[in-house]
């Protein structure tokens, strides 16, 4: 510490005015005494977001909307991350279009519609998918321009707590981004299966599964979670014989209520998907024309060999931090590679925040988006909000499965007394007229207060219907609140109301 500080005499210096990242082109004369920062002030950002996926691009836009000078670094060459480029969006395109194909081929004859000569044009289906992806990713670029976010195409690495170095995609020289805050939003990647090398042709992750050039005769899906069942559904509808091998005894992963998992498995089995539950994959061999897997029953140790043309590895995803430079700033990860953060998304460096798949919580695009907004608000306002108890999950099979809040198993484990109300779509007028009656709605509510604790839906349009449930949980609604709210007739949402009625009293139509 100095005892005295002699301020220097003011002199005029040059500094860039609203300069861009790489080459400031306009300068103006500034009085030295009046400027508070230094030579490259114009190039310093308030926020640099590393990763342009659903968490990163939303954080960048929100930060810019809050008046912060913001840059977003993305290495893929297209914004939107895994979700838009090789995840949620392309898979939904294939799910939707394969469902239409399957319906025309197998279902419309029951509806008085005769169609002949239906055939699959897989190339065309993939082109439709690519068109959707391109439209959406370029749309984000437009949003960046509209909101004044600097889009930096390259690989970002944290050099120190206030600097991100970017290796441009076009091979140019390294760019240094000085910044007051960094938001890490680098997402996740598919977890590989030990002993099976991913080639995205025969042994594929979800990335390869959305881009197969022909329909495999036989497909094995390792992992009965959401990704595996969605992609298994796509290729099953297009003609593949699909077998799902799942280590656990239930599909859908740990978040799905056991009743709904059973219902869903029964429906998917009816559609032709085979299941090997409580089964472990011991080893795989992809050296031949196809792939063979050795599997073992967890219950009785019985082994078996399965052959397939394509194996989809869908055993989960892991945080992606490769080349991020965490070691340069001593940022810690946990045993599963997730970056450790506090309640305001801060690492131990309070100006470096982390959102989305690369840190704690469900690996869901909409969860990352919420965190992106909250992180930007924490930077600007010191306050943000995400309710982790009200994050919905959706599986976009047909019928869809969707849920929010706690499962019955979780409530039971907590020791809280609860009531359950259900309503099947077979008793819903709209589902009947649609000839689409698989599934049900299930409510779990606190026995004493009637407050809704969890809502689980299997049924057509469940992914849209769950929004009402999320709102109910966010507001702390009782099942009676929902039951006494008018729902239009005839709609599928009446099943939602009736399940609420069944929870606090009795349903009318069941």
């Amino acid at each position, binding site marked *: *510490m*100095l*005892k*005295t*500080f002699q301020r220097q005499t003011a002199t005029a*210096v*040059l500094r*860039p005015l609203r*300069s861009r990242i790489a*080459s*400031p*082109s*306009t*300068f103006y004369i500034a009085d030295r005494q009046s400027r508070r*920062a*230094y*030579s*490259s*002030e114009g*190039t*310093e950002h308030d926020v640099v977001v590393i990763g342009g996926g659903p968490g990163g691009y939303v954080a960048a836009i929100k930060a810019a909307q809050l008046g912060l000078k913001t840059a977003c670094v993305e290495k893929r060459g297209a914004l939107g991350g895994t979700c838009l480029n090789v995840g949620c969006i392309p898979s939904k395109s294939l799910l939707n279009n394969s469902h239409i194909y399957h319906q025309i081929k197998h279902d419309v004859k029951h509806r008085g519609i005769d169609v002949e000569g239906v055939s699959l044009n897989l190339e065309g289906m993939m082109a439709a998918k690519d068109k959707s992806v391109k439209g959406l990713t370029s749309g984000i670029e437009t949003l960046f321009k509209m909101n004044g976010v600097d889009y930096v195409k390259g690989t970002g690495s944290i050099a*120190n*707590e*206030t600097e991100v170095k970017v290796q441009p995609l076009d091979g140019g020289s390294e760019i*240094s981004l*000085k910044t*007051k805050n960094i938001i890490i939003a680098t997402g996740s990647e598919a977890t590989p299966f030990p002993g099976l090398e991913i080639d995205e042709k025969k042994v594929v992750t979800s990335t390869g599964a959305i881009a197969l050039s022909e329909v495999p005769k036989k497909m094995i899906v390792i992992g009965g979670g959401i990704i595996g069942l969605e992609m298994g559904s796509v290729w099953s509808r297009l003609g593949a014989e699909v077998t799902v091998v799942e280590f656990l005894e239930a599909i859908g992963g740990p978040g799905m209520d056991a009743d709904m998992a059973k219902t869903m498995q029964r429906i998917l089995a009816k559609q032709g998907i085979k299941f090997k539950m409580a089964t472990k994959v011991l080893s795989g061999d992809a050296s031949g024309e196809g792939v063979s897997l050795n599997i073992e029953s967890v219950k009785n140790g019985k082994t078996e060999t399965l052959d397939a043309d394509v194996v989809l590895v869908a055993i989960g995803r892991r945080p992606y931090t490769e080349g991020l430079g965490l070691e340069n700033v*001593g940022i*810690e990860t*946990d045993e599963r590679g997730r970056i*450790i*953060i*506090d*309640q*305001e*998304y*801060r690492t*131990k*460096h*309070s*100006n470096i925040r982390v959102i989305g798949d690369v*840190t*704690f*919580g*469900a690996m869901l695009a909409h969860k990352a988006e919420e965190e992106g907004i909250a992180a930007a608000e924490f930077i600007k*306002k*010191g*306050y943000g909000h995400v309710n*982790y108890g009200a994050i919905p999950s959706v599986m976009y099979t047909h019928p869809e499965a969707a849920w929010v809040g706690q499962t019955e198993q979780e409530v039971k484990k907590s020791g809280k007394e609860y009531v359950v109300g259900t309503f099947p779509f077979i008793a819903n007028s709209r589902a009947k007229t649609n000839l689409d009656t698989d599934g049900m709605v299930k409510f779990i509510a606190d026995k004493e*207060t*009637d*407050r809704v604790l969890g809502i689980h839906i299997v049924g057509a349009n469940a992914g849209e219907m769950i929004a009402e449930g999320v709102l*109910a949980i966010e*507001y*702390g*609604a*009782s099942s*009676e*609140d929902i039951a*006494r709210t008018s729902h239009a007739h005839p709609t599928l949402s009446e099943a939602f109301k009736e399940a609420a009625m069944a929870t606090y009293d009795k349903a009318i139509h069941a």
Partner: protein
Amino acid sequence: MNATRVLARRTPLIHFVGKRAIPETIDHTPRAHPASPSSSLPTSFKQYREAIANQHGPLVSRSASSKSYFSPKPAPGEFFDRSELPKRFGRLGWSAAEIDAVQSGGASAFA
């Protein structure tokens, strides 16, 4: 009419709580993230902040004792030298364009 009377007695659990507002007091003390499976933070968070990082913003609740302990203000009559401040307040490097601009008296900016 009877039904209306019955409903009138019912108080919905959902009620309007007014426009959302930022709480007047917010405790920024680092705590475990709500989705953290371990529900704890490594000791490095506390150590780092107590040792060197209090310049990054409000890190602790603003009790009188913590305010005085963590205050970044120098004592009366003393001043910080820029070199003592964290890197983020330091001089940034000159870019090539800026150096060119200085050396050419600004002409390079219009070349």
